[in-house]
C-alpha cells in the first residue's frame, strides 16, 4: 500500500465581506491507494472545501497537498471529481457528456467511443446514449457523472455529496453500484457526505469534521464486513459514536 494522497497542515481562508472566513485549519491526513474514505460533517464544516482543494480546483492558503507523489498545482490527471449537481452539460447527449474528459485529453474519436461504450454499460446506461440530461432521472444523471469520471481511468474518485440530491431508494442503489465499481476498479474514493449512515455503509475510514474553523475532529476506522446492515449492533454503536462527535458543538448553532 502506498500513500496516495498526502495533506499536510492545510488551511483555507476566504476573503469574506466583513472579515476573512476561515474554512479549514490544520488539516493533516494521508490516504492509501484503494482506500474508501468518507469526509463526514454538517454543512459548513469545510469538508467540501477540502475536496475542492484535493481536486486542485482551489489552492490552499496554508500547507501542501500531494496526489500520487506529486505536489498539486492544479487538477491532477490521476483524480476525477463527481459533483453533487452532477455537472452534466445540458446541450450534450449522454454520449458526448461521457466523452468530454477524454476529449479534453485529446483522445481520438474511436478511443473515446470504445471507452464510453464500456463505461455506459457498466453504469447501466446502454440505450440512453442519445438522450439529453434533462430527459433523465436524478439517479441516471449521476450515473452519467460517475461514468464520465471513470473514463480517464483515475486512481482516485473525489465525490462531493454525489447522492445528496437523490431519493432514499435511488441513493441506496447507487451506493451499492459505487461499492461494486470501487471493488472492481480498485480506485481510491474520497467521498463527502453529511449522512452518518451513508458514511458507515460505504467507508473503510471516516474523517469527522467540525466547523468554525473546519477541522478533523476524529479519524475512525470502520472495520465492518460488507454488505453492511444498519440494523446490526456494531453499526448502530458506531453511528451513535459519530452522532456524538458531530453534534459535539451543537451549542454554536
Amino acid at each position, binding site marked *: 500500500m502506498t500513500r496516495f494522497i498526502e495533506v499536510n497542515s492545510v488551511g483555507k481562508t476566504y476573503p469574506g465581506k466583513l472579515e476573512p472566513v476561515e474554512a479549514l485549519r490544520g488539516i493533516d491526513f494521508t490516504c492509501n491507494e484503494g482506500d474508501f474514505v468518507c469526509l463526514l460533517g454538517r454543512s459548513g464544516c469545510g469538508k467540501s472545501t477540502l475536496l475542492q482543494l484535493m481536486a486542485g480546483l482551489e489552492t490552499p492558503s496554508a500547507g501542501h497537498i500531494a496526489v500520487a507523489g506529486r505536489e498539486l498545482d492544479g*487538477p491532477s490527471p490521476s483524480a476525477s471529481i463527481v459533483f453533487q449537481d452532477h*455537472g452534466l*452539460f*445540458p*446541450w*450534450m447527449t449522454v454520449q458526448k457528456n461521457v466523452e468530454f*474528459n477524454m476529449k479534453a485529453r485529446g483522445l481520438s474519436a474511436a478511443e473515446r467511443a470504445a471507452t464510453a461504450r464500456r463505461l455506459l454499460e457498466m453504469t447501466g446506461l446502454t440505450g440512453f446514449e442519445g438522450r439529453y440530461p434533462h430527459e433523465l432521472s436524478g439517479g441516471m444523471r449521476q450515473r452519467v457523472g460517475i461514468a464520465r469520471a471513470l473514463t480517464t481511468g483515475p486512481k482516485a474518485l473525489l465525490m462531493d455529496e454525489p447522492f445528496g440530491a437523490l431519493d432514499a431508494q435511488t441513493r441506496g442503489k447507487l451506493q451499492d453500484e459505487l461499492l461494486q465499481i470501487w471493488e472492481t476498479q480498485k480506485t481510491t474514493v474520497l467521498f463527502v457526505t453529511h449522512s452518518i449512515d451513508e458514511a458507515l455503509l460505504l467507508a473503510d475510514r471516516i474523517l469527522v469534521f467540525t466547523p468554525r474553523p473546519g477541522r478533523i475532529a476524529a479519524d475512525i476506522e470502520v472495520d465492518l464486513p460488507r454488505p453492511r446492515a444498519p440494523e446490526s449492533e456494531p453499526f448502530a454503536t458506531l453511528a451513535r459514536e459519530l452522532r456524538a462527535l458531530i453534534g459535539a458543538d451543537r451549542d454554536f448553532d
Partner: protein
Amino acid sequence: MQLRRALGLLPLALLFLAWEISVELKVYPPILLPPPAKVAMVFVEDLPTVLDNALASVERVVAGIGLSFLVAVPLGLMIGRYRVLDLLTDWSIQIFRSVPPISLIPLAILFLGIGDKPAITLIFLSGLWPLLINTIFGVRGIERTLMKVARAARASEWLVMKDIVLPAALPAIFTGLRLAVGAGWLTVVTAEMIAVKSGLGYMILNAQLTFRSDLIFAGIVVIGAIGLLADQLVRLARARVCRWQEGLTAATE
C-alpha cells in the same frame, strides 16, 4: 392549438375592420386614406416596384446584421469569459448602445456619402449592441459547476470556448439576434428615407411626394409582414439549434 395560434390574427382583423369603417365614414378623403381594396391593387399593378424595393431593404438588413453577428458573437464570448475585457469595454458599450443609430445618419452621410455603405453601417450598429450584450449575458449565465468540470478535466481554452461557452450562450445569442433583426429592420427603413435611393423606406417617402397614399399603405404592410416573417425565422432557427433546451425552460416557444 391551431385555434390558439389563430388568436394572434384577431387584433389584425379588428384593425382592418376599423380601416374599412373609417373609409366608409369618409373620416379622411380617399386620396389620403385609400380603401383596403385599392391598397391590395398595388400588389397587382405595382408588384415589381414593391418587390424590388423590399428586396433591396432585406439585402441591406441581411448584410448589416450578418456583420453584427460576425463581430458581436466572438467579441461577446471573449468579454463574457475574460473579466479584464469586461472591465475594459463595459462603460464604452453602455455609452455607445444608448446612441440611437438614427441619430448617426447625418454623420454616416458625411463620412460615407449616399448609398448602401451608410445604410449597412447603421444597420450593423443597430444590431451590434443587442447581440453583444446578450452574448455577454449568455456567457455569464453558465453554471459554475460546468466550468469546474472543464477545469478538472484540464480542457484547453479552445475546447472550453467551443464546447461549453458557445453552446451555453446560444439561447441568449438567439434572443440578441431577434432584437438585432428587429432593430436592423427599423433602421433600414429610416435610413432609406434619407441616405439611399432604393428600398421600402425610399419607396414610402417617394410615394408621399407623388400623392400615392395607397403605395405608402402597401409599403407599411410589407414592412410589417417582413418583420413578422424575420422574427418567426429566427425563432425557428433557435428551436432547431437549441433543441436540448426543450422542456428546460418554463415558457416553451
